[in-house]
């Protein structure tokens, strides 16, 4: 049977014969992940399961990145619990303090995830690794506890929506704009229970970091996974990161798809998701002078070095509007160091930005950039639900790193070509 990317990868790790969509299969897990919010619950479930040790101490990653550096006593207690568990289980990939970064930027960078892996994480944006050609999906803490104990989990084989992208992107339009456009097209439940598979000449030319930005937001369309083929570029990226023996992975010709979309990206331009759902998407030029109080550049969606470079290029030699707090959070310590060496952090600071440590912080309304009632933020993050970043009476708009930098300068949401 000709297989989609999802079927092909699941088959590689499955204890069962992987057939049609809808079938339940049990699979071995390549990497199991949790963070400082979800790991404490996973630890509780793990204990209740009576498990004495994790299935493989090199295949469990615990990353304290959400409320860290710990924002209060309760979050410090949660991290302490995760740390003690990691020590007890002798978990190799435990990250806290100066070694910690935003989990979905950190794991690819460390070469811990790669093509054809099956990765499960107690975090909905685990789907990011689909950008590397991995079948990666988010689950709750108890499912993750089960995977930590057994090294396996169960999946319903998803139907797949194939998105073929053709044409040419202009210099101000990037992969964030593409994924926002797609979510706007199919809706926040457009891929519910399904996998998205991205292909076409636009994908072939897209760098791996940009692919991860798109895969990251598959969940915002309800998707179980957002998958890219692993090609020469992926193999190069993963080999440099230290992932052992990365190989190419492609879907079979003639695989069965639930739906196929063709998108011509030529002339698309920057896209914005307006409050309060990620599918409320408009071209930036259709927004009518929307003033903002805050701009956030960072997160597992757009906190990588290529994102910082794009934003720095726009803001270089300009000043952040006096009415705006521009918060820049490099997603990992290595990205931070690289941005420092390349002079990007200096560009941001001289422009009047706040450069903070790697953390998920404001994306989920945790800390380091919370909104008051009536305040508005343009963020390169992934969710704009009501109250996501603070007060129930605040608003979040989502856009690309280029739009973020331009907006920080203009004080209103604006096309990057206009600053």
């Amino acid at each position: 049977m000709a297989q989609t990317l999802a079927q092909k990868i699941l088959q590689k790790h499955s204890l069962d014969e992987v057939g049609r969509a809808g079938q339940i299969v049990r699979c071995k897990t390549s990497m199991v992940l949790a963070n400082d919010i979800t790991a404490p619950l996973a630890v509780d479930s793990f204990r209740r399961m009576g498990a004495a040790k994790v299935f493989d101490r090199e295949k469990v990653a615990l990353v304290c990145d959400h409320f860290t550096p710990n924002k209060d006593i309760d979050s410090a207690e949660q991290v302490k619990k995760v740390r003690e568990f990691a020590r007890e289980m002798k978990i190799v990939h435990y990250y806290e303090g100066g070694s910690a970064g935003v989990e979905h930027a950190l794991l690819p960078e460390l070469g811990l995830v790669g093509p054809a892996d099956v990765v499960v994480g107690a975090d909905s944006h685990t789907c990011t690794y689909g950008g590397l050609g991995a079948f990666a999906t988010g689950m709750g803490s108890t499912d993750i506890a089960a995977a930590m104990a057994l090294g396996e989990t169960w999946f319903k084989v998803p139907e797949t929506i194939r998105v073929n992208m053709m044409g040419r992107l202009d210099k101000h339009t990037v992969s964030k704009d593409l994924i926002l456009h797609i979510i706007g097209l199919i809706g926040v439940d457009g891929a519910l229970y399904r996998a998205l598979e991205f292909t076409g000449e636009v994908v072939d030319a897209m760098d791996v970091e940009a692919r991860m930005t798109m895969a990251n937001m598959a969940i915002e369309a309800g998707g179980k996974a957002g998958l890219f083929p692993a090609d020469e570029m992926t193999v190069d990226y993963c080999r440099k990161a230290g992932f052992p023996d990365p190989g190419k992975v492609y879907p079979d010709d003639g695989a069965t798809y639930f739906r196929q979309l063709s998108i011509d990206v030529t002339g698309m331009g920057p896209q914005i998701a307006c409050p309060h759902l990620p599918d409320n998407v408009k071209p930036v030029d259709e927004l009518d002078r929307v003033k903002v109080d805050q701009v956030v550049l960072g997160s597992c969606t757009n906190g990588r070095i290529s994102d910082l470079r794009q934003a720095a290029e726009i803001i270089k030699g300009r000043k952040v509007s006096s009415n705006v707090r521009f918060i820049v959070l490099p997603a990992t310590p290595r990205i931070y160091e690289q941005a420092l060496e390349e002079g990007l952090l200096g560009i941001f600071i001289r422009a009047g930005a706040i450069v903070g440590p790697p953390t998920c912080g404001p994306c989920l309304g945790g800390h380091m950039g919370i909104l008051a009632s009536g305040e508005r933020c343009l963020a390169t993050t992934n969710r704009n639900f009501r109250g996501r970043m603070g007060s129930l009476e605040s608003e979040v708009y989502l856009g690309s790193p280029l739009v973020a930098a331009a907006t920080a300068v203009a004080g209103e949401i604006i096309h990057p070509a206009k600053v």
Partner: protein
Amino acid sequence: MIFAGKAHKVGDHIDTDAIIPARFLVTSDPFELGRKCFEGLEQGWVNRVKKGDILIGGKNFGCGSSREHAPLAILGAGIPVVIAHSFARIFYRNGFNMGLVLLEIGDYIDKIRDQDQLEVSPGTGEIRNLSTGQIINSLPVPEFMAEILAMGGLVNYVREKVS
């Protein structure tokens, strides 16, 4: 087992930040989480429910994050059953794992009004709307999930395998 309670309707695409905002995720205690249930929808929302009441969601209920705190908060608020048009997939798995009863009924969701008195039999999937006299049958629970439920949930399933 039959659950009886008053219906409380919420809309489509209710996200996990509406169910339990991230700032409250500094505890795993269902009672503590329950006190803040739906604080991201409306301040003090939880004060309108009585123990045993039933939550009625729209499309894509529980979309967003993977936080298991969301079904825990609903249970902690004293709500044992959620009926929805459809559920987001991570929430659906989490709900089962936490012992929250989830029933999917598609467009029949419009047959339930806010404050209707309901009786729910999870075993048969039958929902009786005592206020209108209507009976609605929910979609069947996927077979594999039913098996896990029959074993007493995922924790017991794993407990048996590791022992």
